[in-house]
């Protein structure tokens, strides 16, 4: 609920109630504190934190990022402080805010996924888990879980068994048929699906003949990927009945509305935060304005109104 003019922006993703459909995308908003001076975190639908692994990870050697036309490549390599340090050092700060905290998790084995999920389940202040089965940057794990319906389903089941929290499975676009994965994780008990993660890409320095990224390949994000993300969200929506969260290249309210109109219950804002730390606030305000303009008081009257 955003108060003004009786506009109701709240959405429900199974058990998870959000005051509005706008979240931050994992890896683009740190642990929340990095942007807390710029954004009133209380106003966000949810904060999705940087992907957490069981043990801290150093990440990839630099250069890790490169701007490309309409987007950027990153090969951060899932650098993070580890789930225990997150609970001890970052969660107490996040708990102070009236928003939902979603922990994005990443493992290299089923057992790791399970252990991370247990630890977060026991910690106070986490409202949902988002399983990253899709990060293209790490040689082991990541890609293989998300690229095969069987392993994607198995990870989902392991995490579901380890927690009572709602489980969102985040899909990779780097597959031949994303709907097959979506169907498999729904069957395995996923409460929701989020998509898309970054699209694997690369870029070459013509003078040195070297790749711009030390890792050679990286994940493409930003405005360039929005049409692909919309297409995949649309395809998945036709095959599953659990809620879908749209991600990919959302820079403003119009972009977010495209996903919502298709049927996504919520959206995540990633790369846009880098060029405008207040992007999430602008998107929320823009959606509200659009609702006023179109005389719609409840956001759910916009979601899924696509007319193909």
């Amino acid at each position: 609920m955003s108060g003004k003019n009786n506009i109701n922006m709240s959405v429900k993703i199974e058990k998870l109630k959000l005051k509005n459909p706008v979240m931050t995308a994992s890896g683009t908003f740190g642990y929340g504190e990095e942007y807390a001076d710029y954004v009133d975190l209380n106003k966000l639908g949810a904060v999705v934190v940087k992907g957490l692994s069981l043990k801290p990870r150093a990440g990839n050697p630099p250069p890790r990022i490169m701007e490309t036309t309409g987007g950027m490549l990153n090969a951060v390599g899932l650098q993070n402080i580890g789930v225990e340090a997150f609970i001890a050092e970052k969660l107490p700060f996040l708990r102070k805010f009236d928003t939902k905290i979603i922990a994005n998790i990443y493992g290299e084995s089923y057992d790791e996924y399970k252990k991370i999920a247990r630890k977060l389940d026991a910690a106070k202040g986490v409202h949902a888990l988002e399983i990253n089965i899709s990060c293209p940057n790490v040689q082991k794990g990541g890609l293989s879980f998300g690229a095969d319906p069987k392993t994607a389903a198995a990870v989902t089941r392991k995490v579901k068994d380890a927690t009572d929290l709602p489980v969102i499975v985040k899909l990779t676009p780097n597959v031949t048929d994303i709907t097959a994965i979506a169907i498999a994780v729904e069957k395995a008990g996923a409460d929701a699906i989020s998509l898309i993660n970054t699209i694997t890409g690369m870029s070459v320095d013509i003078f040195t003949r070297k790749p711009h990224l030390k890792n050679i390949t990286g994940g493409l994000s930003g405005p360039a990927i929005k049409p692909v993300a919309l297409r995949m969200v649309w395809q998945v929506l036709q095959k599953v009945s659990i809620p879908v969260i749209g991600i990919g290249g959302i820079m403003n309210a119009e972009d977010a509305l495209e996903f919502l109109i298709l049927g996504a219950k919520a959206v995540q804002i990633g790369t846009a935060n880098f060029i405008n730390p207040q992007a999430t606030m602008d998107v929320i305000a823009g959606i509200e304005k659009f609702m006023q303009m179109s005389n719609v008081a409840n956001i759910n009257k916009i979601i899924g109104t696509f007319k193909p």
Partner: protein
Amino acid sequence: MAKNIYIGEIFKNEEIAQDCFLMSVALHSTFAEPQPGQFVMLRISGISEPFLARPFSIYSFQRETDFCRIDLLYQVVGKGTQILAGLIKGSQVEILGPLGNGFEISQSARNLVLIAGGMGAAPLSFLAEYLDNKVCSGSSKIYFYLGARNSETLIGMDKINNLTCTAVICTDDGSLGEKGLVTQILAQDLKKYAPDQTMIYACGPKPMLKELAKILQGTKFKCQVSLEERMACGVGACLGCAVEVKGKKGMAAYKRVCADGPVFYIDEIAWKKI
């Protein structure tokens, strides 16, 4: 919630040396006072290519009656700086900052030794000015080693000329000042300074800083360096601007240039990997 994105208006954008521009931007007076070594993320309003902001060190800061003025020195090296160089008076830019940790100001060192190569002159002449105004008394002195490829690309002199400091100018081709790399000239002078009474500040291209690390290795000199790395967010959220630091037991460890730096003590950095 306190910080904001500032819309700045360009009121000066001039080529002061070959491919090097001085840009003055007027900002709302609530812009926080920057410390030497801090930087801003700058974007040209209303363009989508390039779309990420670019980091630039603060060269000068001035509070006027109803606004503040920030000066940047930049070199044209690629797409973003090329477009920046074409901007006319009145154009708008988006500015985030001041960001990062500036230089730690030594109140006790008697010798304040500054070494700048190329665009490194921007943060270091701001630092020199600050030290000259706020720190230096009879007991401490500034020594400024300023290097450039040649006389045409040398920048920072206008500021240095107004300071009480010993300036040593060097150019790679000898067209101005001493001939040689700034690090070579410094290495010759190093014995003049007592390590425990000296603080060294440096900024410049990576090979220069790497060479400096080699020169200082095994000495007791304390040295702070300002590093550069490609950035996306500038505030510590994306982990894109990693620099390798010496980790435990030979394990790789990275710090964020934007939020943990850009100023680091030189012995913290894993120079072998750079």
